[in-house]
């Protein structure tokens, strides 16, 4: 018959093993790939549909000027480009 301290020791060793296993899984390439899976998800939305009107917008450009659609468009309309970032 095992003593209480033996049982505690066994339980502690099992817990430690479980933590180490979880740690290995978390650091494994498979786990990292799963963590990064969102990067390769298809776009959930491509926004305003063809035939619909774009929302009114305004923002500040690189020169500090406030620009809206009317100040950007040409006689034929506009090309509105959404870019992830200009830095990375």
């Amino acid at each position, binding site marked *: 018959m095992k003593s209480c301290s033996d049982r505690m020791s066994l339980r502690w060793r099992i817990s430690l093993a479980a933590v180490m296993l979880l740690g290995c899984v978390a650091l494994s390439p498979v786990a990292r790939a799963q963590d990064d899976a*969102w990067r390769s998800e298809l776009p959930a939305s491509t926004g305003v549909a063809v035939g619909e009107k774009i929302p009114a917008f305004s923002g500040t450009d690189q020169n500090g000027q406030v620009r809206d659609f009317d100040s950007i468009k040409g006689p034929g309309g*506009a090309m509105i480009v*959404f870019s992830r970032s200009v830095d990375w």
Partner: protein
Amino acid sequence: MRAKGLGVVVITYDTREIVEDFATRKQITLPVLGDAQSRIIRDFGVLNTAVPEGHMWMGVPYPGTFIVDANGMVKSKYFEDTYQDRFSTPTILLREFGSVAGTRETVVRTDHLEMRYYATRDPIRPNLRFTLVADFEMPEKMHVYTPEVKNYIPIDFQLEPSDKFRARPVDYPQGELLHLEAIDETVPVYEGKFRLTQDVVMASTRSLEEILSGESQITIRGKLRYQACDDKICYLPQTLPMEWTLNVEPLDRQRVPEAIRHK
């Protein structure tokens, strides 16, 4: 785009400081709006909702392009399935206006047709989507068969596979129905002038490393097979080799100063 009457604006989730640094460094004169709160991005419905809370990317848009008319109605839009890939502007110009100032043309003349082919962009970059274009002109009464034809040899354009790019499906135009009186048959054909296009998406920087560290050129090869007929004779099937040699340049890796980067 301006020559075609379109204004251009770029919208990112960057801060004004980042946008200003970039535009100054690259001498960008078209308006770039830093939508740091992603207000415009949300209003257009293009917020990347897959980004985990707290991640540096939080607030980025799905990259894409809207073409809108002067009243703000969306005429067309261009989005890729993966965030790395990008439509190049010349490909959008080609789709929107049917023409583009391409790279040097190669002209091939046979007894049955004249083919002028080119790429919409040179140099190209990793993950860039551009278009290979072949414009055809056939003499009067000459025709070739569209891909839908039965019992005849259709026109067929194939690229040699490569791990340096992904070829999208060939865009074959709608043909015309031609009635062949001699055999009382109606067949789908191309006559006169027509165009075939094929979009190509370059591989990632990692896959193009060897090219980028070497001669920085890629040769894309393909072939065109067709059988031409006129109102009296069907000629022997032909296979024409095609080749595009394009310069490859790296992505811009220069970043803004550390102090103003996204955290």
